[in-house]
């Protein structure tokens, strides 16, 4: 404790040199992230085909988008995807955690690594693998026929009734590993004496889960939900590479329209309006998730 820490100078003194260290990061951030985000809002105020001069239309694009049944249908699909991408994986992973928290699992590192594989694969690879599984002559139908349920066999991703939940199942498969890995790391940080205390009090597995495990995982559940809900609301890659929104419009999502309107049909203003809408939806969803899962003892912020 000899001298003052030179990196913590006196209260009044500022380190103007700090900005030199910040410039590179913020230059990238400003030019390639913040500015484009704001520009999206600006472009949404024009009618523009991306090539010739644009026409100012004010909030017309946004109004059109907000009153379009096509777009709301896509948003509805996204909400269904939240169930498959976020709710089901969370519940399933919690069931797994509830069971394995009762004893010392041997080979947990192996199981954890294996269950996480779906999350690290490229979404395009995932889409191709599941296209095969769901195909008319693919493994799923082979199993159904094998057990005498051949009547249910179909091209799962090509059927109006099953395409949406089938894409959803792919999401569940991808996200389960993420939830599981996060919850395992949360479980390992819950102090062991909490479990012992619950057991001494005679709590059964269910009581113990709700009294110790679930509250102990609050932070991890919050993070998992934020990541998974964001993925569900975006969900471009898997939709694009499995169904491309079809059959008909049965699996469309907002990001699908953003890409199509901007780069295929060249309604750039309208595409930007959808992009702005999706961004707002995602920020609201994240805010709500954080609020609903915040620490009750941390008080109001």
């Amino acid at each position: 404790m000899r001298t003052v820490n030179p990196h913590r100078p006196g209260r009044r003194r500022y380190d103007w040199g700090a900005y030199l260290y910040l410039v590179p990061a913020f230059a990238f951030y400003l030019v390639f992230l913040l500015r484009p985000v704001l520009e999206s809002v600006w472009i949404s105020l024009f009618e523009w085909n991306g090539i010739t001069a644009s026409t100012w239309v004010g909030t017309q694009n946004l109004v059109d988008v907000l009153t379009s049944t096509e777009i709301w249908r896509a948003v509805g699909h996204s909400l269904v995807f939240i169930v498959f991408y976020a709710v089901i994986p969370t519940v399933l992973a919690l069931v797994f955690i509830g069971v394995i928290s009762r004893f010392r699992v041997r080979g947990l590192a192996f199981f954890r690594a294996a269950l996480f594989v779906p999350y690290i694969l490229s979404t395009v690879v995932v889409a191709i693998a599941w296209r095969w599984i769901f195909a008319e002559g693919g493994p799923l139908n082979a199993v159904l026929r094998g057990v005498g349920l051949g009547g249910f066999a179909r091209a799962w991703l090509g059927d109006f009734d099953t395409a949406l939940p089938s894409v959803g199942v792919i999401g569940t498969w991808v996200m389960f590993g993420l939830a599981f890995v996060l919850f395992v790391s949360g479980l390992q940080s819950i102090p062991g004496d909490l479990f012992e205390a619950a057991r001494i009090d005679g709590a059964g597995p269910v009581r113990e889960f709700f009294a110790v495990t679930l509250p102990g995982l609050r932070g991890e559940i919050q993070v998992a939900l934020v990541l998974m809900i964001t993925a569900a609301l975006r969900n471009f890659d898997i939709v694009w590479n499995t169904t491309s929104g079809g059959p008909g419009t049965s699996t469309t999502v907002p990001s699908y329209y953003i890409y199509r309107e901007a780069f295929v049909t060249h309604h750039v203003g309208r595409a930007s309006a959808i992009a702005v809408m999706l961004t707002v939806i995602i920020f609201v969803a994240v805010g709500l998730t954080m609020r609903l899962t915040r620490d009750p003892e941390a008080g109001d912020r």
Partner: protein
Amino acid sequence: MNGRRSEQLLGYGLLTLGTLIALYPFASIAMLALTPGDQRTGGLGIPKTITFDNFVIAWTRGGFGQALWSSLIVAIAVVVGASLVSLLAAYAFQTMRFPGRGALLAILLVGLIMPYEGLIIPLYYLLDGMGLLNTYWALILPQIATSVSLGVLWMRQAFASVPHSLAEAASIDGASRWATLWRIFVPVSGPAIATLGTLLFLYTWNEFLMALVLVPQNPAVQTAPLALSFFAGSTRNFDPTVTAAAAVTVALPILVVYVIFQRRFITGITAGAVKE
């Protein structure tokens, strides 16, 4: 005692079932890829004879050698670039006092949630204007920007755990701030930097939307997921075995890296996420 046994049975049963489901889809396309194209698999079918022809066809027709190379170049450039600018900024945030510090940190948080869809359209026209569409730069520059938020917050956390005594000792020895960063902070944070690098590598390697929008017309710079998507789209109806071989080819490098570094991947995802 009996209750404990059944709990263990249930636990291992669930984990085993989960593992089989997690690994099956990749295993099934791997089997499909090894099946001769004229042999019908009947769905589940384990191939009666094995062939590597599908891989040869996919490799030559799909140009996956070039695509994997492009993925590697882009991912390494983004990892190096983003780590570098992030650790510089994190050093300032963690060790210096300056006006606007809190506001700048808050602005960085936006990038953690921001969906790419919200910036991809202006990004396209920006890069078009710079003449960089369909080049590696179109993938590298924006992805450094989108990695900065995670990078800075991550490195700030790592630098926070560097012992004060070390930094003090360096400054007593007359080391400049710049030298202290490179001689003390960076070496001590080696593992954290490596984990960040692994994480960014994975995200960049797998990024699809940016590649689809920003390098659609130049096969020479298209990354593996994009090349795979185009390849699968054009052969969708008539060559499932070749498509499967292409998918396995694209997945294998990342799987190998994952098997080697899986601990780093997993601690990265969990720590990175929770530290938000």
